[in-house]
């Protein structure tokens, strides 16, 4: 059994790579797959915080690379889901502490034991990105419906195409606001897909629950009511090969809207 290595990248910072990694990882683990999350953002790690595991980390990826511990020793098990593990980045070093070949080796080893190896990529296209992409055979490009994020995503897709190992890349449009799209103040998802001419893997609506879940250290997927959580579960299902229709994120908010929608459906 060889699992697949999926890198989650974006080029631009702040579009939600780490949030996406944490949520897709948790969702896949909920679905019963064995998942390991690798944080490659050495020096600026955050993934442990989103999962609420920061107090459990003794060994990091740098300790593994420098052979101060075994790979399996450095894996931190999730608090709730035993299927989910984290390989944390070191906070006290920088990106040059690890090189691409070393990360590729780690990915290869983990692939044997896990169904999915998710690599959380740092922002930028420098060493950190080259490391993260090295072992990947699939990529998820995260973007938001803004010109700056789309331009960076375009650059990233170009780089991914030139990489040998990456067989497939798909687009995840994050932080979508249906109301703004309706009033033509925000680019629609279709426009983004058209500009980037890339397969879509999911659309995540903007959700205030993300902020609270980040502070609590609990991925939003665990919250059943959250729209973003539902969207992330759908993305996870699509990763496993299941054909799931796009979530209707355009949910009516007020009572009158609901009535309007009810009649609109009938007509």
């Amino acid at each position, binding site marked *: 059994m060889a699992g697949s290595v999926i890198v989650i990248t974006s080029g631009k910072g702040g579009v939600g790579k780490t949030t996406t990694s944490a949520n897709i990882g948790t969702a896949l683990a909920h679905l019963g797959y064995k998942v390991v999350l690798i944080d490659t953002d050495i020096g600026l790690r955050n993934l442990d915080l989103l999962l609420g595991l920061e107090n459990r980390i003794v060994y990091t990826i740098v300790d593994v690379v420098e052979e101060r511990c075994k790979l399996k020793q450095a*894996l931190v098990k999730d608090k709730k889901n035993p299927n989910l593990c984290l390989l944390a980045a070191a906070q006290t070093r920088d990106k040059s502490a690890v090189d691409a070949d070393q990360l590729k080796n780690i990915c290869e080893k983990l692939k044997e034991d896990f169904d999915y190896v998710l690599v959380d990529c740092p922002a930028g296209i420098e060493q950190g990105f080259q490391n993260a992409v090295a072992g990947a055979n699939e990529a998820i490009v995260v973007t938001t419906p803004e010109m700056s994020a789309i331009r960076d995503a375009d650059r990233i897709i170009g780089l991914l195409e030139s990489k040998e190992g990456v067989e497939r890349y798909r687009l995840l449009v994050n932080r979508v606001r249906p109301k703004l799209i309706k009033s033509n103040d925000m680019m629609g998802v279709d426009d983004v897909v058209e500009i980037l001419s890339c397969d879509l893997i999911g659309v995540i609506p903007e959700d205030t629950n993300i902020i609270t879940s980040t502070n609590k250290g609990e991925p939003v997927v665990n919250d059943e009511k959250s729209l973003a959580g539902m969207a992330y579960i759908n993305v996870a299902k699509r990763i496993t090969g299941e054909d799931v229709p796009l979530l209707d994120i355009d949910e009516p908010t007020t009572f009158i809207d609901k009535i309007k929608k009810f009649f609109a459906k009938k007509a």
Partner: protein
Amino acid sequence: MYDNEYFVVDMASCTSTGEIINSLSLALETLNHSGKKIVLKLNESYLNQSQMLSIQSLITSYGCILDTVETVNEDTAKIAENMNIFVQKPIERRVEEKYETPKKEEFEPFTINVENPNDIAVKDVTGLHFEADLDAIQKQQNNININNDLREAGINPRSDFESIEAQISSQYTQVEEIIPAVDEYSKIVSPIPSIEQFEVNFEENKEFENTEKNSIGVYKKAYDENQLQDDQWEEVDFYETPTSDPVVSDTKNTTYINQTLRSGQILEADGNVVIIGDCHPGSEIRALGDITVWGVLSGIAHAGCKGNMNAKVRALKMNAVQLRIGNCYSRRPDGTNIPYIIRSSIFTPEEARVVDGEIMLFKINQN
């Protein structure tokens, strides 16, 4: 020199217009000064006409009048005069005697010799210079003035802790830079004990073994949080005998740091460590001896890192992600993080020691 109908706002320490407007609106909002004449102390900073106009309109929106501007800057003075604002030059303040430079002899109990300064990954911690920074004292004076105004209105602007901190920081020169000890990463720390964070077990279709057996344990409080137990302090002995050849630090050798440790910074010392300041999450302290943090400890602290199980970690507020003493590792219990720290009011000085192979927290007796 100003009577009751004036309200003096000291902005001499502000560097930008935004800062001035922010602190001014804060001062005006917290205190009810409508109808009063505002005296704005600007000292050297230059403001152009539009900036001055916006400040004036801000003050009028709170029902006050911008009456006087104290400034050294001639351009600012001209603009203010054009706007019919009274301009004054500030009276030079005399530095009070209690802020006089302390003599080195007086601080004899605090001077600590670092024998091998090269062994410590921190620059310039050896010489404790006692030359007070005159600018800093001037700034402090200005701050005290605005604080006095706030105190008169019944507001306590800073906690006592911060004022003590400010006094201390004016007396000592700052440590230049803390260098993360990247090249000599494991110079001081002995091989980490074989803690298995998580044993992966994939034999056929077996589920993950959900055992906490090998994972890192939680540090506990040795006392009832609601009750102060005086006797516990004396009664507890050190049961744990040190493991193979621990390197016990020389107690004379102490590193003294007057700085906040930030995320990613490592402090290594071959003796005891005293830190006046906070240790933020993501920072790490490794010392052969004891670690004392005069502030909030939120990072990782490893005392007795070459196997000295008798080492201690002390902090005014213990919020450490992980506490490590000798070969003993422990983590913070889940959900007990204090993300937003309200200073001084929450200080509960605690000391961590190893008891029966477990790291326990003890309240530091105040008597």
